[in-house]
């Protein structure tokens, strides 16, 4: 600190009254030199957030799952490869000469396990590499006592699952109550559930849902399920009307 102190007035620094007027001309100087600023490249840096390790583990597990089932689920067990496949491959890449009839490479490429093989060649190493990077990062963070708990993320995931459930519920009631009614219910309910409680908001939700149905079902005639329990209860003419327009 470069503040000049008069030894006789030290105690007065802590005593604020008109007897010791405010000293001007003293600037606070930091030890950090002014030319070291935040670099723009840092904006681009990808930093792994909390929950990343768990997700990487899940991703690696999924990749390994598909690898495990590659042998049975992709037609590998029904594969048709020429005998002495090693020599065949060498021949394909021009290293060895074979005599006699050679299987066309295309016939191997057409088999159903080739595509999953290509995919796993990309997926599994990438998943394991990513897991390793995530692990190192988490270990580094733990070492420096940075937060690594994913609890907060989990709460958010559970919150999202609730809305997933609403959507699935909506999917289930459309064939029962018909598109119009289900959409109105979903629209109004979600508006209310999300916290927009005033009558104006609920009305807005209701009207928007109705507008969606009008625009897409009535005018554009987008396809919605045809076999609707509620409409089947109506007499024929109304049923046809509702099915066509709502």
């Amino acid at each position: 600190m470069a503040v000049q102190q008069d030894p006789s007035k030290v105690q007065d620094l802590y005593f604020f009254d008109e007897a010791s007027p405010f000293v001007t001309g003293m600037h606070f100087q930091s030890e950090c030199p002014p030319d070291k600023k935040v670099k723009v490249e840092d904006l681009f840096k990808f930093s792994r957030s909390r929950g990343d390790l768990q997700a990487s583990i899940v991703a690696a597990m999924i990749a390994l799952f598909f690898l495990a089932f590659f042998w049975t689920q992709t037609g590998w067990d029904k594969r048709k490869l020429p005998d002495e496949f090693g020599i065949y491959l060498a021949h394909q890449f021009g290293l060895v000469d074979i005599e006699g009839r050679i299987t066309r490479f295309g016939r191997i490429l057409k088999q159903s396990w080739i595509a999953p093989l290509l995919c796993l060649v990309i997926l599994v190493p990438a998943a394991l590499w990513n897991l390793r990077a995530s692990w190192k990062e988490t270990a580094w963070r733990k070492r420096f006592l940075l937060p690594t708990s994913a609890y907060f993320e989990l709460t958010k995931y559970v919150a999202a699952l609730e809305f997933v459930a609403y959507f699935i519920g909506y999917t289930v009631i459309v064939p029962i109550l018909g598109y119009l009614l289900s959409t109105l219910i979903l629209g109004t309910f979600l508006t209310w559930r999300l916290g927009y409680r005033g009558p104006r908001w609920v009305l807005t939700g209701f009207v928007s849902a109705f507008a969606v149905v009008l625009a897409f079902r009535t005018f554009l005639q987008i396809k919605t399920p045809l076999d609707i329990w509620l409409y089947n209860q109506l007499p024929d003419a109304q049923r046809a009307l509702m099915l066509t327009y709502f």
Partner: protein
Amino acid sequence: MEAFLTGFDSLMQPGVLLAIVIGSVGGLIIGAVPGIGPAIAIAILLPATVFLDDLVSLVLLLGVYGSSMYGGAIPAILINTPGTPVNALTTYDGYAMTRRGEASRALSLAYSASFFGGCFSIIMALVALFVFGPYLRDLGALFGQRDILMAAVLGGVLLIVAHRQTMGLAALLFGFGFLIAMIGRQSTRQIDRYTFDIEYLYSGFNLIVVIVGIFALSQALNLMVGKDDDPPEARITGGLLSGFREIAGRKIITLCSAIYGTIMGIIPGVGEFVAQFFSYSTARSLSKEPARFGHGSPEGLIASETSNNAVPAAAMIPLLALGVPGEALTAMMMVVFFDAGIKPGPDIFENNPDFLFSLFIALLIINGLVLATLLVSTKWIAKMVYIPNRFLGAFIMILSFVGVYSIRNSLTDCIFAVVFGFIGFVLRRLEWPLVPIVLGLVLGSIIVERLTAGAGQIKSAVDLINRPVSGTLFVMILMVIGFIIWTSLKNRRMNYQN
């Protein structure tokens, strides 16, 4: 010149002009709504075209096709959800700019970039058709299954490489997308991959279901679980024409992206996704601020929007000149051509030159009309961002159902969409990139299809690369991989030295 005038005249009918207006504005709105894209709209409008006059139905579909990507940029920028799958890349930079309060700047950049891209490719298309028309037939002969296979592989490699800091993650998620694409059974070809004898899995996962889930539903969940933002008042100052001025200041990148979009559109089977990624990667390497890409770089925005809007008009070229559709949406429009008695192919220059002119003039009008509409009504559309987040999330969820169900009339699809939505939600919270999954799905299925179809002619491994185009692309792949290995080795050496 005569053909030009005839073509122009046939556009100036009230029915045709009305169709242009409806198609453009409708396409704009359809593009702007996540979960509903041009594919669904075109599929719905297709039956109507049987009864409408040929040119009317054609410009209606063109309007939807050409304007949906303009509209798709709006939610991509404002609420981080791409309106159409090809606007996925726009979310990276556009949404970051919105969060900085530069929403109107992002929007005007997107519109001007799209307009430039669209007009550029239309004009290039006209020039090309004039100059090269008769010679184009031979070009198509260069592009067989193996060449497209190599192009898709190159696209995948570039995608992974584009995620500099997160290559492992990008590769991992690309692999997942690839895996999802492959699940399914084709009993007629004795192909059965990972179906575990579950009936729903026999037909595999549909691209749109995955996209709506991973982008729209995940964002819906994200919004509903989070808090309502109070975004700063995004005042749309200086009109939206400031975008043009900005583009004029970045001529090279804009021009490069437009060229990429045009070229990728012309190459049959490649499409917007690869165009965007090539142009994005190039823009990043040309840019003076590569680190900002993905975090609100105007150049990134320009790169993605210019190239994806340059593709539609360019995709018309292989369709018209060779009878080969440039990508899926163009293929759907081939129906209308056949109905109209127009045979796409090299003869079209002799038989129906005025039709060609009508087509591209209509596209120009559509681009202009959409731009004008956006300049006037962007404020209305921009007001959408002030809808409280959580309410918007609920709305997106409702709209997603409509989009998903209309694909295969399957309620199970809707359930899987929301499962993917949950996965996308987890990925968003972890800040892992989402786009590689979708590209893994698209490129993966292209790779597998082309490999299987091209396998007939593959007698030995070298047949994969002994064609001019596939050989060149293979060399490029090796160069890219080599470059990455070399730079990472260099970095490691530098780190040890420090």
